[in-house]
């Protein structure tokens, strides 16, 4: 699924410029790192792509969906085509690990049998099958993150948005998560990953887009975390 941003500007009331005149073209199947300091606009950009936020100016097109004019029902269908890994996991504490994954498929109207099969398979893929009956608060940070990934990819999305997916994780767990994301990308899913982790950006080299004060200041193929290559 390709992604296109044309002159996207977002100004929050009263006059906080979160994004300014952003132009981006991300092709289907790409793995893109989104870097920049805290408050630079990475999360706002991702929220514009999921249409949690509507740009003040400019247009966003994702896989043929024109987000500015999208209707409520089509927005629901569009969101079924993408996966989102939230910074804070956003798991449902009252549902078990398996139910957390299943409910995405239930929303899509799949049969209970298919829902259980696919959710179980995804939990096995992220190594959480033995934890399937546990509730999110009973899982470790890394397990919760893997569960969030399982939920985001269970509907085989064409585009995966990951907002700091390795933040707050120890290096070993973070590396597991990164490997998981790379394997998902290898299977053809476009991934846009916001990160502060220089190790991953410099080790697993992919396109790097740097945002500073809402503007794209660097867009580099197989770039490094730091523009000067010092990290």
């Amino acid at each position, binding site marked *: 699924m390709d992604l296109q941003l044309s002159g996207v500007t977002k100004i*929050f009331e009263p006059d906080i410029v979160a994004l300014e005149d952003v132009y981006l073209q991300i092709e289907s199947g790409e793995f893109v790192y989104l870097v920049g300091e805290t408050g630079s606009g990475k999360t706002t950009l991702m929220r514009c792509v999921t249409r*949690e936020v*509507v740009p003040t100016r400019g247009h966003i097109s994702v896989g043929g969906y024109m987000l500015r004019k999208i209707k409520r029902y089509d927005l629901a*269908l569009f*969101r079924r085509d993408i996966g*989102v890994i939230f910074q804070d996991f956003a798991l449902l504490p009252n549902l078990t690990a398996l139910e957390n994954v299943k409910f995405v498929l239930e929303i899509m109207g799949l049969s209970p049998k298919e829902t259980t099969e696919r959710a179980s398979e995804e939990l096995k893929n992220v190594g959480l099958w033995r934890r399937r009956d546990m509730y999110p608060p009973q899982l470790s940070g890394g397990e919760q993150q893997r569960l969030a990934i399982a939920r985001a990819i269970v509907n085989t999305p064409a585009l995966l948005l990951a907002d700091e997916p390795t933040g707050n994780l120890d290096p070993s767990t973070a590396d597991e998560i990164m490997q998981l994301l790379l394997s998902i990308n290898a299977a053809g899913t476009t991934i846009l990953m916001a990160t502060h982790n220089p190790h991953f950006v410099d080790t697993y080299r992919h396109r790097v887009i740097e945002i500073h004060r809402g503007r794209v200041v660097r867009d580099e193929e197989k770039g490094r975390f730091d523009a000067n290559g010092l990290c």
Partner: protein
Amino acid sequence: MASARYAFRDGWRLVVRHWGLSLLTIFTAMAVFYVIGASTLFVMNVRHIVSKLEDQLTIQAYVKPGVDLDALAKKISALEEVRDTKVITKELALERLRTRLGNQVEAVSLLGENPLPPSIEVRVDKASQVSNTALKIDVMDDVDDVVFAGPVAEKLSKVSNFAGQFSVVLLVVAFLASGVVLFNTIRISVYSREEEINVMVMVGATSTYVAMPFVIQGFLLGFAGALLAFLFVGGTYFSAIVKLKDMLPFLTFIESPQLLYKLGFMLVCCGATVSLIASLLAVEKFIKNAMEPL
């Protein structure tokens, strides 16, 4: 189909998850619908009694000598509000007097020649029409005098009207009360699942999909409350009627079981309708906001 199954399952889960609140809501809905059911039965019985008494309300039109009774009866029958008329000849009047006197019937012989005047007995549709009709008959040339229970008719008419107005006010208040209670329960459920709803919306749930469990939760609570109210109304009504008949043997009450079935059907339909409307109102705005981008 899977969505419907989910909606029912999740609606049921909401009821169980907030079981304390659910019980409170069912109990309150039951109390409200019990009041609706009991007051409906009360009003129906008042109207039944009034209608029975109205049947006994007559206007007695005494006619001038030599008047053609049948022709006058026909003329009175032509009045719009008159239900029926009966010609009471001098002989029939005497016969009635004899019956009324019972074992003192001998007293009739003291009257000599039958002194009772012929008359026409008139029945109207409603008690409220008695006075007006009596006036219309009184001004007819062939009519000598008119006798009717004016104050009784007016009081019955007032009772009937009051019962009708009382039932309407009570129904409106009860509906609003049950609606507010259900609305608040669903609102609390919605807010308790705020995070969940936001996640659902983010992963592609439609507003209908998100709203359905809450609507079903409200429906189940309203339905259960109304059903329990019906069972309680049914349980208490007949025993109350037995006692009332002992205390007020001169009055007749409605005793048809079919009436109760109809009332039960009405209560359950009302419960379901009120709860559906309250749930939709409670959930609609919240989901709209959740789906609205910044």
